[in-house]
């Protein structure tokens, strides 16, 4: 490893992309729940929700790739590429890191199943997509456990905001289901 | 149209119902005494059935020989399913066959299986019919066939009698119609090519196997050969199941049932998925698929209900539509929501007056319901409603503008299960 890869640059990249990924993932989950709840208004058609959800999810994958890449390339902590995909494969904070790994694996499953939705059929696709409700909390916990900035007030505030938003959307969904919506 | 004009041979003695008796038990010995023992089944039977021109007696009227061949030509094992569920409340012919002449049906099943190379066969009836299931078990136990027919009870919804729904139920599914292929003759029960036939069709097949195609064609018309069972009910003196030659004028069938008990205004032909026709129009029509269809009716499963002038056609139809609206599988939005909406509109028209609006509502609703489901259930209902509005157009207008007529207070004529739950003209 060249010395150019050792230094704060990659570390800042990891931290920044991690936060952005969390925000985008939260946005994706919110849009997904909005879609499942069949939200529609005069100026906000269904296909907008659906299209945004799909595109934001792709952005999540892009930023996640940067996050993983910068982490792996950074020689300060020896996290291998394998550790990004295989839980408990790293020696550096294995449990908190693995939450991120699990979230990544689930995200890959969600993305692949959605891209192959036509071949999978609706019922199978739907069963896989429920994993989103496991993916997001794992990502949030990963950030709270291993994130360098986890103690900074503004980061805590941001994370709390994400949790409240998803919690609120979940309450809206549950209320909708209780009211007999499909 | 007289017998001579239609080209009918003079009236033949009963064929299927020759062995019908209400005194003797319907056992194997009596059956063979009357009809003779069944011949061995060979693939050649398919050619004979083809030549005979036998068509399905379950309502669709598809050529039976062609259906058998489409299954027989497939490779591997095959299954025969006999549909005796008779979801149509106004039909009792299948029940008559299964209770009084079960061995004729069982012969037909075994012969069809032998002809197409099937080694598995089911006879399906409504699962609530405990006595019928028991008597059929007894009948099967009496026999010494190379193949043992399995008697199965299926769920009772109207749509459950539909071909793909039966196959789905036998495969362990909920007994609801499916949307797209595979069709039963390609992949049916357990994924095997399956022949599904109405029990009356198989009963005819049992006799064709014994007596040949020319015998079968010696009754009926060249384009519509053979005989059929008609369930005649309503305002006739002797309602019941009668065997008539195809092509018999409808009026002759009504006469066989003792003739009208009162003056008739209309006749329902084909069953609840059939159509109403004015009595004068219906009387001379030949009982064939083509003949009735040409007049806007349908032969269906041979249901004929005579409506007297003192009854209200709109009210009878409204009750039937309410019943059918609850009989869907509930899988398709347009049917799930559209049929109750139709039932509401028909009820308003029949029992509460339309306030001048209901006919318009109906004409807007009908195209939203027809052909938008996965099976023919909604189409059957819209066909019935359209024929009612056409046949009783004046009554419908009067109901819409002025309110219900006297006929709505008459006791209902058309049988509707669980009627107490549907009371709405009280």
């Amino acid at each position, binding site marked *: 490893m060249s010395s150019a890869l050792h230094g704060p640059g990659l570390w800042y990249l990891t931290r920044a992309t991690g936060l952005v990924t969390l925000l985008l993932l939260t946005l994706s989950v919110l849009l997904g729940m909005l*879609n499942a709840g*069949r939200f*529609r208004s005069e100026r906000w*058609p*269904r*296909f907008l929700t*659906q299209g945004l959800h799909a595109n934001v999810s792709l952005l999540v994958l892009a930023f996640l790739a940067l996050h993983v890449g910068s982490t792996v390339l950074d020689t300060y902590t020896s996290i291998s590429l394998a550790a990004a995909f295989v839980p408990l494969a790293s020696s550096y904070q294995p449990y908190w890191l693995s939450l991120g790994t699990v979230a990544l694996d689930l995200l890959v499953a969600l993305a692949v199943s959605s891209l192959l*939705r*036509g071949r999978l059929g*609706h019922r199978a696709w739907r069963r896989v997509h429920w994993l989103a409700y496991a993916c997001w909390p794992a990502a949030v916990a990963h950030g709270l456990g291993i994130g360098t900035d986890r103690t900074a007030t503004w980061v805590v505030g941001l994370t709390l905001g994400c949790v409240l938003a998803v919690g609120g959307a979940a309450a809206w969904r549950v209320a909708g289901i209780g009211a007999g919506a*499909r | 149209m007289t017998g001579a004009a239609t080209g009918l041979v003079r009236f033949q003695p009963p064929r299927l119902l020759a062995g019908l008796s209400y005194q003797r038990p319907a056992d194997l010995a009596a059956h063979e005494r009357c009809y003779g023992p069944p011949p061995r089944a060979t693939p050649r039977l398919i050619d004979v059935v083809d030549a005979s021109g036998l068509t*399905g007696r*379950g*309502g*669709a009227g*598809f*050529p039976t020989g062609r*259906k058998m061949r*489409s299954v027989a030509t497939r490779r591997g094992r095959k299954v025969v399913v006999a*549909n005796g*569920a008779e*979801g*149509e409340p106004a*039909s009792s012919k299948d029940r008559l066959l299964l209770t009084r002449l079960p061995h004729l049906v069982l012969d037909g099943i075994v012969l069809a299986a032998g002809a197409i190379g099937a080694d598995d066969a089911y006879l399906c009836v409504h699962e609530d019919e405990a006595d019928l299931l028991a008597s059929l078990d007894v009948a099967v136990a009496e026999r010494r066939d190379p193949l043992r027919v399995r008697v199965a009870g299926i769920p009772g919804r109207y749509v459950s*009698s*539909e*071909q*793909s729904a*039966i196959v789905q139920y036998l495969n362990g599914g909920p007994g609801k*119609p*499916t*949307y*797209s*292929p595979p*069709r*039963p*003759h390609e992949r049916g029960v357990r994924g095997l090519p399956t022949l*599904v*036939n*109405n029990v009356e069709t198989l009963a005819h097949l049992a006799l064709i196997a014994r007596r040949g195609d020319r015998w079968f064609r010696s009754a009926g018309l060249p384009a519509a050969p053979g005989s059929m069972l008609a369930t005649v009910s309503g305002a006739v003196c002797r309602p019941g199941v009668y065997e008539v030659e195809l092509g018999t004028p409808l009026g002759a069938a009504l006469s066989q049932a003792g003739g009208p008990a009162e003056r008739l205004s209309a006749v329902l032909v084909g*069953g609840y*998925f059939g159509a109403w026709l004015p009595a004068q129009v219906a009387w001379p029509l030949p009982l064939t698929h083509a003949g009735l269809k040409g007049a806007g009716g349908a032969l*269906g*499963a041979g249901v004929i209900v005579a409506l007297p002038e003192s009854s209200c056609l709109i009210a009878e139809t409204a009750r039937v539509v309410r019943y059918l609206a609850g009989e869907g599988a509930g*899988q*398709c*939005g*347009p*049917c799930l*929501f*559209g049929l109750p*909406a139709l039932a509401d509109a028909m009820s308003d028209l029949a029992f509460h007056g339309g306030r001048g609006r209901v006919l318009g509502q109906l004409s807007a609703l009908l195209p*939203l319901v027809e*052909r*938008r*489901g*996965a*099976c*023919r259930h909604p189409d*059957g209902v819209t066909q019935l409603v359209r024929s009612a509005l056409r046949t009783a157009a004046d009554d419908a207008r009067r109901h819409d503008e002025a309110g219900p007529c006297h006929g709505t207070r008459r006791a209902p004529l058309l049988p509707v299960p669980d009627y107490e739950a549907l009371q709405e003209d009280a």
Partner: protein
Amino acid sequence: MRLRVNPIACTGHGLCAELLPEMIDLDPWGYPVLTPEDGQVPRMLAGHARRAVDACPTLALLADSAASTVAAFPGGGDGRGHSR
């Protein structure tokens, strides 16, 4: 190209009507009505039609290419044969 709706899979999400209003309307209960009824898609709408098919959340909107046709079937003509 021809569109058709699987009425069992359709649960009335309505995205198809948003993306292809030229051919798809919603009935009073939220389910799609195709115009023309046979679902024949004019060439200039083909791209929009394909997008609508991809957008359906339950994969209920289906497209058949011009070459494929539904074969006649014993038992009723269109697979919905009633054998009672």
